[in-house]
């Protein structure tokens, strides 16, 4: 009785999990099917012949690699800038006392929730005026608008989790404030920094709206808008090719999931919900 109920539960639970994951499964299957098999009715659940031709065409015949390169530069630059500034800022917000600190923390949270569409028009004008439109730099600047409050907020709660006594001990032991930061706080914060960096990277990697508005040339276009241009500009939509692009676009994510998942859950616990 008990055994059969357990089995039933597992079947239902896994049924639901697979239903949720099905679109992703279908994405991979489609990307591996040869063109003629794609339009078979009824569709084949697993490809009868596995082909990598779409991936090959994606890399050789489309600007996919260029977009990919742009996205890597864009997301990495955003992450470095935001995590660098954010770490110092979070340290200051958590461990220093000065006038205006509370209102600053309020401002951070406020901007964390601010809709992008409010900022996008002034930012667009701003970039045009500075002559930065159609550059990766303009996107890095625009991405800090959402990534910095986000990273600050995460890092702030990681920082708050480091016992204050550790810093006090370092001060008594003869370190300056910055010395204590380097010797004691930074090593303790490292897991939090990694997890914040991952989240920031993913956020920047996936961003669409700013890229749509601020960049209009292949030279600076990241993957999100780039792949969508491939969809729109194609004479007839090549689903296999698009699915191959989707899979390739998710590769960094899959790597993170495979090796660094504990950092992701940690980040979730720290900032996203406790808020």
């Amino acid at each position: 009785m008990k055994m059969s109920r357990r089995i039933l539960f597992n079947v239902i639970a896994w049924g639901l999990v697979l239903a949720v994951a099905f679109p992703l499964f279908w994405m991979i299957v489609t990307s591996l099917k040869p063109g003629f098999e794609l339009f078979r009715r009824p569709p084949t659940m697993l490809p009868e012949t596995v082909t990598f031709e779409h991936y090959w065409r994606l890399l050789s015949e489309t600007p996919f690699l260029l977009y990919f390169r742009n996205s890597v530069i864009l997301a990495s630059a955003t992450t470095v800038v935001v995590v660098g500034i954010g770490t110092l800022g979070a340290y200051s917000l958590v461990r220093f006392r000065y006038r205006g600190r509370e209102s600053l923390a309020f401002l951070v949270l406020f901007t964390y929730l601010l809709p992008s569409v409010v900022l996008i028009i002034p930012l667009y004008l701003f970039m045009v005026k500075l002559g930065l439109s159609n550059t990766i730099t303009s996107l890095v600047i625009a991405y800090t608008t959402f990534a910095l409050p986000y990273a600050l907020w995460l890092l702030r709660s990681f920082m708050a989790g480091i016992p204050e006594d550790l810093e006090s001990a370092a001060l008594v032991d003869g370190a300056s404030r910055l010395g204590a930061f380097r010797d004691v706080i930074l090593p303790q914060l490292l897991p939090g920094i990694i997890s914040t960096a991952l989240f920031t990277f993913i956020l920047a990697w996936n961003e669409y709206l700013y890229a749509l508005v601020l960049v209009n040339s292949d030279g600076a276009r990241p993957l999100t808008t780039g792949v969508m241009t491939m969809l729109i500009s194609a004479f007839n939509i090549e689903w296999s090719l698009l699915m191959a692009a989707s899979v390739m676009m998710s590769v960094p994510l899959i790597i993170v999931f495979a090796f660094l998942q504990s950092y992701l859950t940690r980040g979730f616990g720290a900032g996203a919900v406790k808020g």
Partner: protein
Amino acid sequence: MATADLSPLERKYARLGIVLIGPTVLVFCAVIVYPLISAIYLSLFSIYTPTLEGEWVGLSNYAELLAKGEFWSSLWTNIIWTVGTLTLQILFGVGMALILHQNMIFRSLARSLILFPYFVSTVVAVLVWRWLFNDLYGILNHFVMWTGASDMPVDWLGSMPNALLSVILVGAWKYFPFVVIATLARLQTIPDSLYEAAKIDGAGPIARFFDVTLPQLRDVLVVIIMLRAIWDFKEFDLIYLLTGGGPVTSTQTIPLLVYKEAFALNQMGMASAYAVVMMALMLVFMILYIRRTQENEL
């Protein structure tokens, strides 16, 4: 705290703190505060996008938008979208969290699979779903016809009310993992002793859910709902990429309206006015949420 009370060393520390926050403040002013203020300022102009030339029109943009049916219908769509997708996210998210909290085989793999939609790019999610929704070769239509629910392929995105329902469904699929993870984290902190005590008091599994689990989840659910309501309300990518607001304007929410005014109709001033009104509407939720977080911190 008055600076006069501080000792020199304390003042030195405070100065260091300000130096460390300096870059943040600078960036905030340049990319957030300044654009925010200029958004409000721009909304008082009529600006033609390609030439960026404008003239002062005062509050007439606001008067115009409030009189326009498109604003109200977009707002209405926006509310339906937010409430609909949020409800599904919460129901499905909490349910899935309860399932994943149980002992099931390959639980960590199941968790990863559930989490994936949340982290995948909206562009990827939309491409996959558009392929699933494809009227001729999409597997969803194949499934619908195979079960006999309909003998005609369903037009998932091109007609109403299907389009709005599809958008709500995809939104729920993409964002419910957030609810799962947040709920799961809270579930794991409920002490077993509470359940044991309830068992001793004679509570069955259903009573235990309503008397132990749900009250414990209440706080975290309130936070999740507020946060997701804010994020869902301002969602642009997913809806824009799935339907572009169509058919015609039936899935057009305010963020899409702002984009259309600014970059398709080339009315930057008007678009700014829409954005400002939208922010004002969201402000209520944002302040509620911020209040709550600050309370929790104190």
